[in-house]
């Protein structure tokens, strides 16, 4: 395949670094990740210095408007970013647990097409996508697609793979799994398709599941069922989940920790309960204000959308990227420098000059 030559940090090395370390409470670390898209119209900085960790056996919620980079961060972890996009800088480390303890796999050091990376995809980190309509190949049966994943990662024969597929379908609550396994995607409903996707993703028992807006395209009742299913599976299997969505209600229900993204950067990071009761970043506050409320007194208030629109991804905004839409905008401060990551009490961070004078150290954009 033709590829643009790699930039600095992503040097395809031999095997990934392995160090046997003590068991960490994080399954994945993302450090200062920059993923850019190089197109005719310019450079779109989809991820502009993103750092976060996914806690082991918990749910990390990733929230933001369209275009903030939440999907790109998931694709970057899976090394599924296609040209003209690529990871330009930063590190992604998977803390793999083996029988002997723990080893660290530096994903960003692996070549996108290498067998090592492909082994991780599907077997250790699995992903489900937004559109159940189009996430499954229309010309192959559900069973065939699940079996493909199983046969790719496990040394079993077709009969065993098929048995596993049926077991998985049953596990995700699919009615009549032995019939569905031979059906085509267009023959089952949207909710069933998303269950099939989950079955597919879990068929190789991954330690991390990335769910990119899995319920956005479903009606509310089905959504509730799928969310319940995911919670249940997570508890049973002991899986970590990275749950991407723009729906704060779903976050409240599913997430243990939350990360808020805006225009390629993380603006706030917090455990879920404090986030809702004591939001720090103006953007988070604005998001929470824009949700309609059911309670009697508050539903008489006007909805307050966030003023302005998400800027064009090719634009480069000076200073804090949110300042044109911010209610707490401080002229001379917010439009000049990019706020750095400020650690607040007990594992909360925020990027805002309201809380400290910390400035983003590395303001030079890598080219």
């Amino acid at each position, binding site marked *: 395949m033709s590829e643009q030559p790699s930039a600095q940090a992503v040097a395809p090395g031999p095997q990934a670094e392995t160090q046997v370390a003590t068991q960490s409470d994080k399954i994945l670390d993302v450090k200062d990740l920059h993923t850019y898209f190089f197109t005719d119209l310019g450079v779109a900085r989809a991820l502009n210095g993103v750092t976060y960790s996914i806690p082991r056996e918990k749910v990390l919620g990733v929230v933001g408007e369209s275009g903030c980079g939440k999907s790109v961060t998931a694709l970057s972890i899976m090394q599924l970013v296609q040209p003209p996009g690529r990871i330009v800088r930063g590190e992604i480390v998977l803390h793999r647990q083996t029988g002997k303890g723990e080893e660290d796999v530096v994903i960003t050091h692996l070549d996108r097409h290498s067998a090592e990376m492909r*082994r991780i995809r599907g077997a250790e980190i699995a992903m489900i996508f937004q559109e159940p309509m189009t996430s499954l190949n229309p010309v192959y049966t559900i069973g065939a697609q699940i079996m493909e994943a199983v046969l790719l990662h496990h040394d079993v024969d077709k009969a065993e793979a098929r048995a596993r597929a049926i077991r998985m379908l049953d596990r995700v609550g699919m009615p009549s799994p032995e019939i569905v396994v031979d059906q085509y995607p267009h023959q089952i409903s949207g909710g069933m398709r998303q269950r099939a996707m989950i079955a597919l993703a879990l068929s190789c028992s991954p330690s991390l599941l990335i769910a990119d807006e899995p319920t956005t395209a479903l009606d509310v009742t089905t959504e509730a069922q799928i969310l319940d299913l995911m919670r249940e599976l997570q508890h049973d299997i002991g899986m970590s989940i990275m749950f991407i969505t723009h729906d704060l209600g779903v976050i409240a229900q599913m997430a243990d920790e939350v990360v808020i993204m805006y225009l390629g950067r993380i603006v706030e990071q917090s455990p879920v309960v404090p986030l809702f009761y004591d939001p720090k970043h103006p953007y988070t506050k604005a998001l929470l204000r824009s949700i309609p409320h059911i309670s009697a007194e508050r539903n008489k208030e006007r909805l307050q959308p966030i003023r302005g629109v998400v800027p064009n991804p090719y634009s480069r905004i000076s200073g804090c990227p949110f300042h044109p839409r911010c209610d707490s905008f401080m002229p001379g401060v917010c439009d000049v420098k990019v706020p750095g990551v400020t650690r607040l009490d007990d594992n909360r961070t925020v990027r805002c000059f309201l809380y400290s004078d910390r400035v983003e150290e590395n303001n030079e954009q890598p080219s």
Partner: protein
Amino acid sequence: MTAYLIRRLGYMLVTLIFVTIVGFLVIELPPGSYLEFYIDQLRQQGGNVTQDQIVALERRYGLNDPIYVKFWKWVSGFPRGDFGESFQHHRPVSELIWERLGYTVLISFTTLIVSWSLAILVGVYSATHRYTIPDYIITAIQFVAMAIPNFLLALILMIFLQQTFGLKVGTLYSPEYRDAPMSLAKFLDLLGHIWLPVVVLGFAGTAWTSRVMRANLLDVLNMQYIQTARAKGAPERTVIWKHAVRNALHPLVMTLGMSLPGLFSGETVVSTVLNLPTSGPIYFQALIQQDMYLAGTFLFFFAIALLIGNLLADILLAWLDPRIQYS
């Protein structure tokens, strides 16, 4: 499925009847008839025709009958395999058709298979290697291929082969095999000659099909299920061929039925330049001389071939795409 097939065949029959009628009408359109052409020819050669002879010829060929009588006389022979007689060749039409149409179909379908196999490979390659130099070269070739009239290409190739290699190409067999019965040696001789019409005929079609394949594949590669396949850890080769190409083929097969008429058309024109023993040259001559039974029967068989081809294409489509149900 069988119910669909039966209905479809019945449908085809009705279409065929209409086609035959329309075809015959069109052929009969020109004022005058073969007889006048024949008389003119005789006179040009210095002979003359008496009135009695003219009347005899008219009665023999039924040239003065009203059109529906002519039509009926022609069509009623079909079940017996009698398609009338050719005026210019003085032979039954069925003999001429049998000789010529067979080669037309052979060349057309060979071209179809070769052209499509090549087009799929080229299309996949150019879709997966966008913006590289080979891709640009392929695109340039494709554009030119679609712009050259096929008979011109035939001519250019013939000139090139003659000037560079001293080859005299054209026709389907070397003189020593032409009337010989079929044997392995004759078959090999055929292969040695048939590549030229196949290349000429298929050039533009391959270019067009490969571009459609490229466009379809690019569309399919943007689909979510391709990401799903990659996310499973499937190697890129599998993602492209097993997942993407299979889906990209579907809209392409829909056009399969449409490429058949083009093949027959092209074949008829190219065979005049290449001097092939196929339907083209005879058909055009028959039109100009109003040898109506010959021309009409050719049109009739062209239409049959097209209808069958369309049916096969639809069956192929249903086999490829489980979403299509013919109930």
